[in-house]
Every structure is written in C-alpha cells, then in structure tokens.
C-alpha cells in the first residue's frame, strides 16, 4: 500500500438524527437536523466548510444537501455504494483532507424511505437499465442463504441455528432499549424472536432490520485543527473498501458461509491500523447487521471469533454490552434503524461517542448507562449488496496515540 490514513485526519464534530419512521420529517429536514448538530458539536458554522460529500441511495447530485443547507457554491459530491454509501462518502472526504486540498469538510448521509408506501426495500436490484430477464430478489432471501448453509455446514438443528441468530437480535434489542434515538426501543424477548413469522426462511421478522428514515453528519479536519479546537478528538486509523466481483452466485468455490469482501477489507484495515489480534485489540464494533445471520458471519470474517465458532461467543454473551467485545452498542441496524445512505455515519457516530465517553448523551431516561468503560479502538463495517457479491467498508477509529 502506498499510503495509510492512520492519524492523518480527525473528526471535529458529528450529528445524527433519531432514526425511524419519521412521518414528521422530509429528507431535507433530516439533513438540516444532522448537519447543524455536527456544526454545534464542532463549534463551527457552515461558512467554514470548504467542501462536502453526501451519501444517499435515493437523492441525486450534491444539491441533495446544498439546497436544504444553502451551501454557497462549494464543491459537493454525491456518493452511492449501497449500504456502504455513507462510509464511502466519509472515506472520500477524509482523503481530500489528507491530500491537503481542504482543511474542514462536511459529510452527510441521508435516506428517506418511509414515503414509499412499502415495507422493506423493493427488489434491491442494481439501479439502472435492466433487461428484466432474471428474477428480482429481496434482501432477506439473499441473506437467508447464509443461514441455510451455515446451519447445514456446522450441523446445527433448526432450533439451535434459530437460537444462535435470535440471540444476536436479542442482544441488539437490549442495547437499543437504552438508546433514545433508536428506531426500535422495545424490550423484545427471546420467545418473541423465536416465534415471530417467517420473512424468508429461516429468517424470521426479528432476524431482519427495519428500513428507516434518518440522517447523520460528520465534520472532518486535519489533526492540527482538531487538537487545537477539541480536547479529545477521534482519529481515523483505517478506511478500507473492498468491492466483490459478484461471482458468489456463479462460482462453485464460494461457500455461502462467509463474505469474502469483509475478510479482504478487514485484513487491509488491520494492516493500516497496525492491529494484529482484533479479538483482543478492538474495544467495540458497529457492524452491518442487516440480518442476524449477517452479524454472526461477520464476527468470523473480522476474526473476532474463530471460523465456525461464533455460536459459542454469541451464546456466552461475548458481544453483549457487558461482554469482552461489545457489538452494536447503539442497537445496530436491527434497532437503531437503517436509512441506507446514513447508516455508515451512524456507526461512526456511536464509536465517536463511546470513545469520547459521551454515550449517555443518548441514554433513554431510567435505563442503566450504555457507556463502555474506557474503549480505545472502535471498528465499523458496512455491507452493501448481498453475500454473493457486495461492497464492504471497514473503518477503525481511535483516540490520539492509540
């Protein structure tokens, strides 16, 4: 690798709206809410922004944000990379700062789905002209394939397999409950999870994340500016994207037990950040739990759990809020919600809050603290696409000197 992003940029401020069925808010409303939270957090005004990136799967052009924010003729780039959209917008913004072209830039991720009149995401197909000769698929169907194969390969009975993935969702609901900005804040029991209707066998309702409205924003700057203006800015340690050749449905060598692009992106990110043993060195992670089985398999792909052994870690509470490596401390996609173009920034936002010791700013009144004790390094992971082929983002963030 020619260069590394490690410690070359820092986050000056962030903002994130409540995710959910925001019948009350348009995309523009959400953008303004998230961006102005970030401005306030960074202690700057919009006129200090020199360039901006917007991640959205539904909007078009940079005017998606320049119009509601009335940005004045600065460069704005629209990025789309499925569920890795916001993370990739963030990555491009970081590179522009690291290149020395800009000092202070804005990244906004946004999507507004709940005006579409349907549940879920439609056919999830690649946008653009289509010959319509192959069947549409749905995201749950694509990811259910992982579960079918995982259960068969490791000899799990249907009940054992369902319990394993159900426990993933249960943990996220336990975390989501404590978060006042989460889409789903209910206390969901294992019994409810296991008895929920099938969406795409073997995935039931609680194995699937919802589709939400929401926006998140970050202000990225140089280490010098960050250190001058903030006492504990969060530094970027690694940013990696791996794009699959999308051959899993056509190549007999793909096993439907892992996501190769996650493995590739993670290895590069660990290298970039200087991490040898992620299970020991990473303090927390926000991963792409679009479906419970996705999170389970991702734990193995990120080397948090040995191959084929994630069930032991899930069932023992290794990834719980009070576990050794807490995952989805804000509830994840499962509970915090999933407005595609905003999700990657939402993950970074949670890591950012936890690293600064500010997680309880989002605490639901009456609940015990959701702040992790002294986290050092946080990892975020997005999967845009399906197991057979996807865009993967892995980012690592930490405090100065870590």
């Amino acid at each position, binding site marked *: 690798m020619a260069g590394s992003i490690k410690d070359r940029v820092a986050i000056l401020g962030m903002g994130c709206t409540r995710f959910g069925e925001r019948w009350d808010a348009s995309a523009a409303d959400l953008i303004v809410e998230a961006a102005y939270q970030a401005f306030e957090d960074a202690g700057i005004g919009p006129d200090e922004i020199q360039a901006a990136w917007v991640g959205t799967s539904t909007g078009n052009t940079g005017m998606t944000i320049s119009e509601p924010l009335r940005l004045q003729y600065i460069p704005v780039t629209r990025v789309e990379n499925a569920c890795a959209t916001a993370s990739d917008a963030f990555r491009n913004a970081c590179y522009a700062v690291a290149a020395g072209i800009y000092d202070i830039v804005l990244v906004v991720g946004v999507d507004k789905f709940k005006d579409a009149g349907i549940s879920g995401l439609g*056919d999830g197909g690649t946008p653009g002209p289509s010959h319509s000769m192959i*069947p549409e698929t749905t995201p*749950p169907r694509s990811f259910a*394939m992982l579960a*079918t*194969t995982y259960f068969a390969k490791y000899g799990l009975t249907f009940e054992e397999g369902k319990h394993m993935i159900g426990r993933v969702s249960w943990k996220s609901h336990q975390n989501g409950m404590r978060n006042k900005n989460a889409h789903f804040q209910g206390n969901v029991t294992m019994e409810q999870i296991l008895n929920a209707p099938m969406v*795409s066998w*073997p995935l039931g309702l609680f194995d699937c994340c919802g589709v939400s409205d929401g926006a998140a924003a970050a202000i990225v700057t140089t280490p010098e500016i960050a250190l001058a203006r903030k006492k504990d800015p969060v530094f970027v340690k690694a940013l990696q994207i791996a794009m699959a050749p999308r*051959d899993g449905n056509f190549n*007999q060598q793909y096993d439907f037990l892992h996501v190769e692009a996650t493995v590739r992106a993670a290895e590069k990110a660990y290298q970039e950040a200087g991490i040898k043993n992620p299970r020991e060195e990473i303090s927390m992670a926000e991963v792409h739990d679009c479906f419970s089985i996705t999170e389970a398999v991702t734990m193995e792909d990120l080397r948090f759990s040995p191959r084929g052994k994630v069930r032991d870690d899930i069932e023992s509470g290794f990834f719980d809020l009070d576990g050794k490596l807490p995952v989805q401390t804000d509830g994840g996609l499962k509970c915090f919600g999933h407005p595609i173009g905003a999700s990657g920034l939402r993950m970074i936002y949670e890591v950012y809050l936890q690293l600064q010791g500010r997680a309880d700013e989002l605490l639901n009144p009456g609940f015990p603290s959701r702040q992790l004790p002294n986290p050092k390094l946080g990892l975020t992971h997005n999967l845009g696409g399906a197991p057979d082929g996807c865009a993967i983002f892995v980012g690592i963030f930490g405090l100065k000197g870590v």
Partner: protein
Amino acid sequence: MAGIVSYGAYIPYYRLPRSVIGQMWGQPGGKGEKAVAGSDEDAVTMAVAAGLDCLKGLDPKTVDGVFLATTCAPYKERQCANIVANALDVPRSARNADFANCLRAGTTAVLSALDAVKAGSLGQVLVAAADTRLSGAAGGDELTFGDGGAAVLLGKDKVAVEIEASYTFSDDLCDYWRDADDKFVRHWEDRFGREEGYLKIPVEAVKALFQKTGLTPADISKVCLYGQNTRVHATLAKKMGFKPEQVQNPLLDQVGDTGAALPLMILVGALEEAKPGDRILLVSYGNGSDAVLLRVTEEIKNITGRRGIKKHLEIKKTLNSYGRYLRWREMVALAPPARPPAGAASMSAQWREHETAIPLYGVKCRKCGTPQLFLSQSSTRAHICLQCRAKDDFEPYRFADKLGTVRSFSHDYLAGGIDPPTTAAVIDFDGGGRGQFLMVDRDPEECQVGMRVEMTFRKLRHTLGAHTYFWKCKPVRD
C-alpha cells in the same frame, strides 16, 4: 417412409381432484382429477417441457422447424413457436410456425410437418402441442379441462412410427369457441355438439380412411381418440367399431381434456406400450376431424429414457385448494401486492441476449475450463472469466440440460408473488458452474442443502403485455 422419430410429453405437477371443485360449488364433482399448470406455466412453457422430453439424447441443432399447436398462445401477435425453438436451442435457420385456434391444431401440425419432411424441404420437424384452456368458474368445462403437452419429432431417418395414411374431414360445426377477447371457452348446447359433431364427424373421417386403405377396425392395435369425457369417449369408440381393449387411455380422468394437445398426448401414451408392427389410429376432433394411420417399426425400441405420459402421471402432487387454483389462473381479484411492481421487460435487451438467456447458455473458459453463467440485472453475457480472468476466450456452454445440487436456499414470504412463498436456490451444476434460480414444483418442507434439481423453462413475469420467460429449477423426481 417418413414418420415419428421421437416423442415426449409433459403433464404439470399439480392435480386438482374433481371432488375439490365439486365441494367448492356444492355440486358433485365427479370422479378423477385434472392436471393444473402452475402459475408460471403456459402453452409455451409446457411445449418446451414436452419438447425437452422428446429431444432427450438428440441434438437440437438437427431440428429444421418447430411447429407449435395450441389454442392458448400467450400472444395474439408474436410467433410463439420461435420462443419454444429458442428455448430448445433449435437453430435460427429453422422454419417455425404456430398452428392455432383449433382443437385439431396438433394433428394438423403433424400432417403439415410430415408433408414438409416427405417433400424434402425440411429434414426434421418438432411438433409440440400444449393447451391450458380455461372455463369460467363453476361451469361444466371447469371439471373436464386439464393442462398438458406432447411433442413428436418427424423425420425420415430412424423412423419409429411410420405415418402410412391420413384423412381430413373439415366441418365448420362450431360447438366450442372463444372470440378474440374471450378468456373463457364458450359452448353451444352440449347435446348439439355431441350428437351432430363429436359422435358423427370423426366417425366419417375414420370410415373414409379405412375405405382409402382397405383396413378395418380389427387391423388396429390401438385407437387414440380425442375426447371430452370418459363416457362419451367410450360411446364414440364403440360407434367406430372398436373393442374396449383396442382403445388407448384418453387420460380424461387423470389429466383432463387438454384440447389441441390431447390427441398427441394419447398417442405418446400408446407409443410407450407399442410393439413393432402395431398399427395405431390417431383421431382428432374440432371443426372437423383428422384421422391418421401409423405403423410402429423396430426403431421404437431405441426410444428410451422419456418421461412421456407414464412417468409424468406418477410425478404429481394433489392440489387440495380450489383457492390456489383460482389464484394461479388469475380468476379472482387479489388484494394489491405490498411490493413495488416488477420492472417492464425490455424487448431490445431480450433480443440482444436471446442466444444466452433463453436457451440458458453460459460459457466455458478456453483457458481454465471453468463453466460459468453470467446473470446480472443488466446483462447475461460474460466477458471476463470468473476464475482465471481471461477476456472473451470462451466457448458456449449450455446449462438448461444439466442437473444440479442445491447449495443453499430460502423460502421468501416477503416477495409475495402469485404462489408464496417464493423459493430461491443456489445450485451447483454437475460438471461445474453455479446459478441462483427460483425453485418450483417443490414442497417447502422437502427442500434441503444437497437436494437434486433440474432446469425448467417458466414464465417469470408479465408486464406491459409482454411475457418474460426464464429458467427455474425443480426437484428431480425420477
């Protein structure tokens, strides 16, 4: 002498007991059952299925023409025989034709193909007949109409069944009809059709054929007679002078009246049992009658491995829900789907890729030998090998005729569709290559990793008046 070189048939997996229809309407349904095409099957797909059975072990590139016989063509304007020929991988130089609008279309197509072969203008012609006639709910025809198809390959070499003579009697007696806009078959008073039509016209055709050939009913091993119901069918056979043991099972209580396909389906049933030297009489009916005299040769012993009628009768699943039948036939107004509508089929894209998608060709890399499909939303043509990344160095490789093993699957309740859940499976083909396909004719409970599947040509969707066909997979059941 020219004649039949190969045969095949298709009967859809699902059978609706007449008692289930009777229960729905509080009437006696009668005995037996009828074959019901799946929600994604039509005359084109069933003709392809019968054609695949007929061409098993034969090279489709040696077929010079495909004649499709049906009264239920999915298009009024667009040659459906072309779609069948394309799916069967018959070359573009073939002379294809649709024989339509008449219950006699199957035998008329056979006689026309025979003339072309005899004249030497075409070497081998595949005649595929299939029908999915529809009666309005609670009508008598709803009990009798069934779905199915048959195919015969006509040629001059290795003839298994010589066609010795034929006689056609045309009569514009109109007992059954549909006008250009009718979804359901109409009929005149049944006594008129029976007494003046069905029980008279075929008798005259057969009488004329016997006169022409000097034969008598005693010379016939099996008579394959079109029929509408078992009782009247037996009456006609008797009136022609045949003993019950000479009459080939007309399939009416197992499959139903499959319209233009039925005479050929009964014929295939007879050929499965036939011995060299047997004389078979094939008789169709509909605005006249075709009587065709056939003689079985030694070559009949070499036609093996077909599912034909016999095996297809065994491969079945009872459909105990009249509601599902109504839904499949789009005879009931459904609640609107909770999903966005499917994208419209692109005619230009379909044409561009008709050599890959419709006959289900992938490629085999000349460098590393890996067979592979390329099925993306925007293209079905591979350029870069997924294994060794050689560029555009492939030979064509057909997947439609390969069996496969399920690697993973899911039953999708979210996607909805006309027959939920939608089952999708990733299958690894024998000999290499993988694809993800929808799975049909399956019970969700039977699906598992490692199960064996075969390919089947089905309707994918119907948008803006255009039918999109593609391959799906189904469990191997023999």
